[in-house]
């Protein structure tokens, strides 16, 4: 990379200092002055022209020289690029499993744009997509009829206005929360969806109210630190709102109220973590986004973002695999599973994973994990192979059991 940068800088300098245009100008000047001289004194024409020959030729040579220099600079930069991307071609383009699913990708993009709050871009994108589909529809009627069916199907897949509205609400609430420190819309939303949130075991409503309490405690709109009026407002807020939380969060509410006594010296008190948490607003907006999207059945981060990033992380490994497979002429035998493990950061693991300790295969719907009475778990196929329908010994402990006694597990 350094090499590329260096070569490019050199190229840039060269192109800035390029003399070729000056040489062209010099040639023009020479021709012009010769012309003037001849016009003034036609008798000297032959001499003047003869004198002109060599300088004009020389200046063309100079132009060529300076072009050559630029050329060599370009070539050096090419070499630097080649070196940087050496033996790193793009993954083979042989089977592009996604090209046939363009409408699904477009839908994912549209939803990504909505989720990111890029409403104007999303609107343009959708309308351009529709235009294209109309174009397609009108063209394909002339050609084949199967294509129109596919085109019609696509229109149905575009995110409905409902989703758009949901995301607009989300961005309104987030904007209020982040820019104006206004928690009320978020609290209102969490109350509207109380049941669903509770079923998920979410603490969102309490977290929001707690932050509101802390915010009031610090003086509300004008944050000048703990003041009498602020404490008064916080106390009133707590009286009004916190009784609903008492059964579920007794300890947390106690803490919040106990902090009142420590107001002159909160920094040194055990309540410091609650009252001066710099990332509190960020955390709350994050968990709000998460809950909001989860209720819609969506991932909190943009799936497109996660997938593209994971893809970028996975590509070097896959590429290496590709070269090895090509060199050894091996085929990859299981079509539904990647042949290598991709080292993704732990935050990219979303599901529990069970790998059978006997067969080393991942559990699937067809081959679920089975728990023997001793509490050890192996995959169903391994269980059948080990037992052949009779009592058998657990491969990991002395316990014996019948395959009938094994229990199917759900991850």
């Amino acid at each position, binding site marked *: 990379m350094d090499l590329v940068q260096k070569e490019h800088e050199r190229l840039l300098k060269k192109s800035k200092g390029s003399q070729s245009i000056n040489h062209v100008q010099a040639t023009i000047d020479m021709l012009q002055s010769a012309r003037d001289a001849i016009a003034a004194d036609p008798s000297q024409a*032959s001499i003047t022209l003869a004198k002109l020959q060599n300088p004009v*030729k020389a200046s063309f040579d100079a132009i060529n020289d300076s072009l050559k220099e630029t050329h060599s600079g370009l070539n050096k930069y090419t070499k630097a690029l080649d070196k940087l*991307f050496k033996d790193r071609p793009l993954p083979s383009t042989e089977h592009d499993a996604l090209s046939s699913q363009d409408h699904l990708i477009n839908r994912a993009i549209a939803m990504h744009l909505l989720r990111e709050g890029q409403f*104007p871009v999303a609107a343009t994108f959708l309308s*351009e997509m529709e235009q294209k589909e109309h174009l397609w529809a009108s063209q394909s009627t002339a050609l084949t009829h199967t294509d129109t069916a596919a085109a019609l199907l696509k229109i149905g897949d575009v995110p409905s206005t409902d989703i758009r509205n949901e995301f607009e609400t989300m961005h309104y609430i987030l904007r209020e929360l982040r820019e104006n420190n206004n928690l009320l819309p978020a609290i209102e939303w969490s109350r509207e969806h109380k049941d669903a949130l509770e*079923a*998920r075991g979410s603490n969102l409503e309490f977290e929001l109210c707690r932050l509101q309490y802390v915010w009031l405690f610090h003086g509300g709109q004008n944050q000048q630190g703990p003041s009498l009026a602020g404490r008064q407002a916080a106390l009133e807020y707590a009286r009004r709102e916190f009784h609903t939380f008492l059964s579920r969060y007794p300890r947390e509410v106690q803490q919040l109220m106990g902090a009142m006594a420590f107001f002159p010296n909160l920094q040194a008190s055990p309540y410091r973590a609650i009252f001066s948490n710099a990332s509190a607003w960020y955390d709350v907006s994050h968990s709000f986004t998460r809950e909001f999207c989860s209720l819609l059945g969506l991932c909190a981060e943009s799936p497109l973002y996660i997938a593209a990033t994971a893809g970028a992380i996975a590509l070097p490994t896959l590429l290496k695999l590709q070269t090895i497979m090509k060199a050894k002429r091996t085929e990859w035998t299981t079509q539904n599973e990647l042949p290598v493990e991709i080292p993704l*950061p732990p935050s990219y693991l979303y599901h*529990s*994973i069970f790998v059978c300790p006997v067969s080393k295969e991942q559990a699937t719907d067809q081959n679920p994990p089975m728990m023997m009475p001793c509490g050890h778990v192996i995959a169903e196929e391994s269980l059948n192979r080990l037992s052949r329908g009779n009592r058998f010994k657990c491969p990991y402990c002395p316990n014996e059991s019948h395959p009938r006694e094994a229990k199917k597990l759900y991850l």
Partner: protein
Amino acid sequence: MASELTSTKLNAENHLLLDQPLLRLPHELARRNFKSVQRIVEREKEYVLPALKEVTNASFSEIQNPEQTLAALDTMISRMQGLKRKMENLQEEEKKIHLQSQKRIQHLESLYNIPSLADVKYDMWSRIRLDRLLADHMLRSGHTESARQLAQEKGIEDLVDLNVFVQCQGIAENLHRGETKDALQWCGENKAALKKSQYNLEFELRLQQYIEMVRVGDKCKLIDARMHAKKYLTPYLSTQSVEIHRAAGLLAFPQDTIVEPYRSLYSLDRWSHLADLFIRTHHELLSVPSRPLLHIALQAGLSALKTPSCHSAFSSPSANSLSIATSVCPICSTELNELARGMPYAHHTKSYLENDPIVLPNGRIYGQQRLLDMSKKLGSVEAGKVKDPTTGEVFHEGEMKKVFIM
């Protein structure tokens, strides 16, 4: 711990796979630009030097009066001025390209300063990359306006090759409409580079022109067609002889013939084939990959993330995640679920569960501590009971059974 460190380490050198076109494309443009400069300089040189010599000789042998000499000089001067103007334009263009490249190099360079995949800076960098990939995809599928807006909103105009793709799409659309003019002009501009191309775009375009002439079918046009074939098709005789013979054969068949291969030569589908061919040639020339980068990234990413649970009939998307507190898995999320259906799932050699797994009587596995905490938070569950977050069933705490995952 050690394994965690290795899996989040960022190897920038390896990471730049998707970013090759980012530098290659402007470089190809710069080279093309340079070639044009070279060409026009050469052309003027070849005119001015002999002309000057001629004027001088004529002046010495006194067969020319001074007015003619002056006129000849004037032409030279005006041609040189034209050259200068053209060169200035091209230099301007070159400067733009170089500045753009510089910005791109800086962007890639910043990746080298990020040590870990878990870094916030990497997150930001990766978001820019996604926006770039999105814009690339939009441009390729002809959603130009969206791409322009997106680039503007995100301030990444320098990282997106808007004009190149717009021009390419324009020419391809003209081909769809049955116009070869722009495409042929493009071929003319890139003549030298096209010689190395693996596709023979220009021949195909000329052949199409010929077919259109034959299609009209009246005598006059047929003569034109023969002239056209002589002029543009025969130079390819050594490499495309089969096609040229077929083209000759075409003269014998009316346009509603059912005889192959003449039927497909007359077919209007050839126009979309030509448009595709043009796009492929264009991308090849500018070293742009033939499929959208987004596809490449997604195909790898979907597989890397996918688990057998993502399309399982037994698990609900939200509840069987590692921890209820984390969100829905991206593959289970509506956006990508269908897309990932045909993909292979990631390979794992180790089980990955919470470290205190218990099993409930209905066969569901959870982390014990988390399940207890969660049930406590739920107002509706009595003390000493736990609630299965997936199915909603309530069990006694004593019914939780320890399970051993090796």
